[in-house]
């Protein structure tokens, strides 16, 4: 009988901290799941000079932090990190490993899963524990129009990646205590066969539509280029970004890079306001990760209206004007 305490591991992805808080969000989710299987929540991180992250992870709910620090781990390395996590997982046998679906995580996690001979579910939007104590992984499938409930019944660890912003982090709490387990780097750790030649941090960009908490999307139903411009006023008021459908881009009402669709940007705002969009599949597939959709259309049977949390049967342009007015009146100075 295995006397070791069960564990849920969260991979510490700190490269873009503070902007990217997915590790903290996963620690919060792990804390939500762990009591149901009497597990402890652990963070695992590799690199150099990691003390601030160790402290941060403990303050956000890590009961234990495994740390491997070495100058050769200073730069993120998919292959080296994958071998390290594989070996650690073999030593400590966690029930579950959660990885943030950052660019790095999405390349790293599949390789770890393959090395461990286990399953991996990509981009989970929900994680639960089943009656049998398994990790229920809820992930979008088929262009995001379907959600699949996935389990890994016979292989361990159970692995999932989760997109940033999916879960809420626990507020920072300095009272929390955690154990820090420092592990030496293994001497036989292979060199990464991929060599990093240059690594330049990109200048902080303006808010991208993909990350915007509010997206205002418009379609041909807005009526004209002039009326479409009102959507920008609404977005400004809400700290959001404007997107649109292909016909609107073709008509020159909107720049191509603001196209929301399968061939354009995929969005996941907290609120999506959809104005005069009927809802062609190429567009809706890129909006299914929106938390809450308010759609406005004269036609109550439009696909977008059926997909929405709130379907407003009205002229898109007129309703936009009324909403701007209503919002201005309510925003506290």
């Amino acid at each position: 009988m295995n006397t070791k305490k069960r564990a849920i591991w969260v991979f510490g992805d700190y490269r873009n901290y503070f902007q990217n808080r997915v590790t903290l969000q996963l620690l919060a989710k792990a804390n939500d799941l762990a009591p149901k299987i009497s597990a402890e929540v652990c963070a695992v991180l590799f690199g150099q000079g990691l003390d601030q992250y160790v402290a941060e992870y403990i303050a956000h709910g890590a009961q234990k932090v495994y740390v491997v620090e070495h100058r050769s781990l200073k730069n993120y390395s998919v292959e080296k990190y994958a071998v390290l996590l594989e070996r650690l997982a073999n030593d400590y046998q966690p029930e579950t490993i959660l990885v943030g679906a950052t660019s790095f995580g999405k390349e790293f996690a599949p390789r770890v899963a393959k090395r461990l001979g286990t399953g991996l579910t990509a981009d989970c939007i929900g994680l639960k524990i089943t009656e049998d104590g398994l990790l229920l992984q809820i992930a979008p499938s088929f262009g995001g129009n379907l959600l699949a409930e996935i389990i890994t019944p016979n292989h361990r660890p159970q692995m999932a990646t989760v997109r940033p912003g999916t879960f809420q982090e626990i507020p920072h709490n300095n009272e929390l205590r955690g154990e820090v387990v420092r592990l030496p780097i293994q001497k036989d750790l292979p060199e990464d066969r991929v060599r990093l030649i240059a690594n330049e941090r990109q200048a902080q960009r303006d808010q991208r539509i993909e990350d915007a908490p509010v997206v205002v999307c418009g379609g041909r139903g807005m009526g004209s280029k002039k009326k479409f411009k009102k959507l920008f006023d609404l977005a400004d008021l809400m700290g959001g970004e404007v997107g649109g459908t292909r016909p609107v881009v073709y008509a020159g009402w909107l720049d191509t890079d603001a196209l929301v669709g399968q061939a354009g940007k995929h969005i996941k705002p907290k609120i999506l306001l959809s104005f005069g969009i009927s809802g062609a599949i190429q567009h809706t597939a890129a909006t299914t990760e929106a938390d809450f959709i308010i759609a406005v259309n004269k036609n109550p049977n439009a696909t977008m209206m059926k997909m929405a949390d709130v379907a407003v049967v009205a002229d898109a342009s007129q309703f936009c004007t009324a909403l701007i007015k209503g919002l201005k009146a309510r925003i506290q100075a």
Partner: protein
Amino acid sequence: MVSELPWDSKTGTLRRDLAEGMMNPACANALEAAFQIKRRYGGDIITITMGPPMAEEVLYEATAMGADRGVLLTDPYMAGGDTFVTSHTLARAIEKECPDFDLVLCGCHTSDSETAQVGPQLAEELDIPGVAYVEQLEINNRTVRMQRLSDNFFETLEMDLPGLVTVTTQANAPRYPSLSVLETAFGKPDISILGAADLGLEPETIGVQGSPTKILDVYSSTAKKKNLIMKGTAKKIVDEVFEKFGDRISGAIKKDLKTHYHEKKP
């Protein structure tokens, strides 16, 4: 429509054979990258796909555009596989059909499930260096130099061949075959069709049986929405929206909203 795709409750997978057979967008970019490499450095292009028999169409298409030959992996036992067994199956096919390969190019993800996991797992299976989400690549002797944007970092990377690269849709502009070229290609395509037995793969190690992940259920992502319908004058609806969802809106826009709003009397 995609959301009406049939869900096969017996095998617990999507019936992809009933979906439209078309080349995945990112794979078209990977193929274009292969054409550009061939033009500059020479080489043979072999395209491989796994899927229902009709997936052969994308191999015709690739051949019509300039690929040298195609390999279709199709077998009922291969159906419903997750990325773990898919990468395993592809690796065995590559080892059998083109063991002396220099470079494996993959689309960075599929447009249907978008897991982006097969490429990195295939690199593990073949035990070669691999780099995902590549936007530019050039080859010097046996070294590939690649550029990509990874999270907020512009990275320049190098690896020695043989290696594996997954290509983004930003990498290039894929060409499209003209109909006449396509028709010519239908005349004499060099396409091999292989099943599990041809690759020496036991049924329990591939497809739905061999997959570590199991799908319990699939449902429409919108099924659980309430779909509240609001009608009336624009102003009345706006008031109703704020009354019911003011907290949610306030949270998203990070601004306090007056909860009890009364229009100013003139």
